[in-house]
């Protein structure tokens, strides 16, 4: 966890180059071929979802892998009303979760990184250990607890448990990041009379944008996909997030596969959009290095 700030060697990233500079293009060919093969294999699920989203049941059952014609664009119009509502719900659940996770992880990681205090490593370890808890074990006790608090079928009943799940990893990430900040920044401000809290949100927070992007995206992915908790706490199907929304087209007695897949495609679009806008920051956040 100790990333020394005293390195004088410049990492490859900052110099914009890597080591095979003298070998030329030729060296890249075998690498690229291997990468292309891996990428093709990786994209098979992706492509098959898209291909299948244009099929009706008859086409789907007779041919899974290849596209069939005519293309049924109406699958998308059938899926849209339900998916759009689910996407809206997911946004309502995910946004406060991400904000809370970033804030709390930031505060906590900062405290561990910049202060020495009694019990620091013990508390850190106790929090980190929570990652080992099997989620499925906690579902019933947590459900009874949420019900006692009157939070069944509410937004906060989803947001707070989700936040709690992400915090251990989040604060670990933020601690790693904050340890890389030179203390000179803080010393100067402290000498100018800033309070501790001001140090946090004036200096630490703005600098933490890359790490926040990474943590934010990871949290978003988690909330977008989590299925077990919402289906247990939410009673109204109108409040279901997207992870359940995509399943609405699969009934116990018949499934409209084409529409289901169209639903999956629509469900991925918001994520792709978010990725598109934050990709660079997301990568930058990992640049500082994630390690134990």
């Amino acid at each position: 966890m100790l990333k020394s700030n005293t390195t004088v060697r410049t990492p490859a990233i900052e110099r914009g180059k890597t080591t095979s500079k003298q070998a030329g293009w030729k060296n890249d060919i075998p690498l690229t071929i291997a990468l292309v093969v891996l990428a093709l294999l990786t994209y098979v699920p992706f492509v098959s979802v898209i291909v299948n989203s244009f099929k009706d049941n008859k086409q789907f059952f007779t041919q899974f892998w290849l596209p069939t014609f005519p293309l049924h664009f109406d699958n998308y119009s059938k899926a849209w009303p339900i998916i759009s509502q689910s996407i809206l719900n997911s946004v309502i659940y995910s946004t406060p979760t991400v904000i809370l996770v970033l804030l709390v992880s930031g505060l906590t990681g900062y405290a561990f990184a910049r202060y020495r205090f009694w019990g620091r490593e013990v508390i850190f370890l106790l929090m980190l250990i929570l990652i080992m808890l099997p989620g499925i074990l906690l579902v019933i006790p947590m459900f009874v607890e949420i019900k006692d608090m009157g939070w069944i079928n509410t937004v906060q009943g989803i947001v707070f448990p989700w936040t709690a799940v992400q915090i251990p990893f989040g604060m670990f990430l933020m601690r790693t990041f904050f340890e890389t900040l030179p203390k000179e920044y803080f010393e100067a401000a402290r000498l100018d009379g800033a309070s501790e809290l001001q140090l946090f949100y004036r200096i630490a927070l703005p600098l933490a944008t890359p790490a926040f992007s990474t943590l934010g995206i990871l949290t978003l992915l988690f909330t977008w996909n989590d299925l077990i908790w919402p289906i247990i706490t939410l009673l109204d199907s109108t409040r279901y997030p997207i992870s359940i929304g995509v399943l609405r087209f699969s009934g116990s007695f018949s499934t409209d596969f084409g529409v289901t897949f169209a639903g999956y495609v629509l469900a991925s679009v918001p994520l792709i959009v978010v990725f598109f806008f934050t990709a660079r920051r997301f990568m930058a956040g990992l640049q500082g290095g994630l390690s134990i």
Partner: protein
Amino acid sequence: MKTRKLLLALLIGIILSSISLVTAQDALSGELTVYLNAYYDPAQDQETADLTTSIAQKYMEEHPGVTITLVEALPAGQDAEAFLAARMAADESPDIMWQQFGTRNVRGDTWWVPLNEFLDAPNPYIAEGTPGHDKWSDSLPDYVLAQTQAADGNWYQVSLDWVETGLFYNKELFAQAEIDPANWTSWGKFISDMRTLKEKTGADGLGAYVKQNDWSNWFWADDLFLTVAWADMANDFYLEKYNDANRPWRQLNPEEVAKAILDGKLTAEDPRMDTYLSLSKDFVSVLPADYNGIASLDDLDQVFFSGQLGAYWTGTWKNKLFTNSVPFEYGVTYIPGFTTEDAPAAQGTAYRVGGPSSAGQYGIAQSAAREGKLALAVDFLQYLSAPQNFGPMTQSFGGFLPLVAGTDAGPVMSGFQDVAELPERLFNDPDNRLDLAARDPWISAMQAFFLGEADEAATKTTLQQIWIEGATRLCADQGYEWCPA
């Protein structure tokens, strides 16, 4: 004088009407949440959902002060049992709720209100002259009531519809292999025809699968084979308390199975079980190669549609889908009768596996009773199960046979009426024969046999062990009078 009498009459009239008004309002006001499974699933079947909504709407109009909220059916892949377990743990179950009668009866009055007293009473929504008017249970067939009764004698639900099974078969493949269901005079002939189909067309004969720790349509076959093996002992197993003059042949109640096991009459070491095992082995020999790895019945749809499966054992609920989407000509038939060639105890007939395991199984949650909504819930349930309401719902959904007297199955179900008239199986599914806990070990034991990991002798020993343990467990849970101390 006259005015006084008039005033008195008026007073009495006012008192009487206000009493009835008050009592009427007491019984029927409040909010009710209702889960109807397939009959309210807007994402899957908008038409039926709309119909159900309008039926609920009419009820609300007749009973101002009542709000009925329909809860959407769970998406597939979502475990209804998990959903219910969580809801019940928090007293948040819908007031009227669906559950399979097998698992519902296990939960019993911990979760559900016994409906016996209501079933004995009149159903105000059933018209005079129609069964059910004087006694609600008259509107439902006896054999259904018998099958869905819990081991403690209570009914925790009303079973309003019926699901039947059949073999949907690919007429083109059958023609290619030159086989015809009309020639199936015995089980043996059926199996050899399935093998012929595979030889001549390359397609697999029969669509079925075995799934660990879960239902699979192999359960149906399993029930049939046990029935055929033990058909001649049925009368020995029957207990007087379950007998019904109208139904000399009926399914065994778990208590009867448990008693037969503990008395030593029903034992897996009996030579009859050799018949059972060999029939089972024949069965799996005509299934697709990955029958142990198929995750759900619907996965076989693909194989059937792409012309790689000769016959597909599935249920009436597929009817709509097949009618609309199958790319070839198909027909509906069934397993042929078992003759003494197939099994010494055979009675020359096949057995149906259809049953009331369908969408129309509704019970009332204890939480509703605790909140004082019992009268309202019962009333709405009576309303819903009246033929003029439930009938149209089943016709619209088109996947189940309605059980309520006075309803009509509709044209879609025609092929299944023959099947529905076959005698029922003696043994219920592995999860309902004795108790739920006996299911998974039974599946594992049979799978080990099918995959060659256990031979006949070892399998019989294991099955006997499962039976003894299950019977003992049932005795401990239910405390029947005849149970050994």
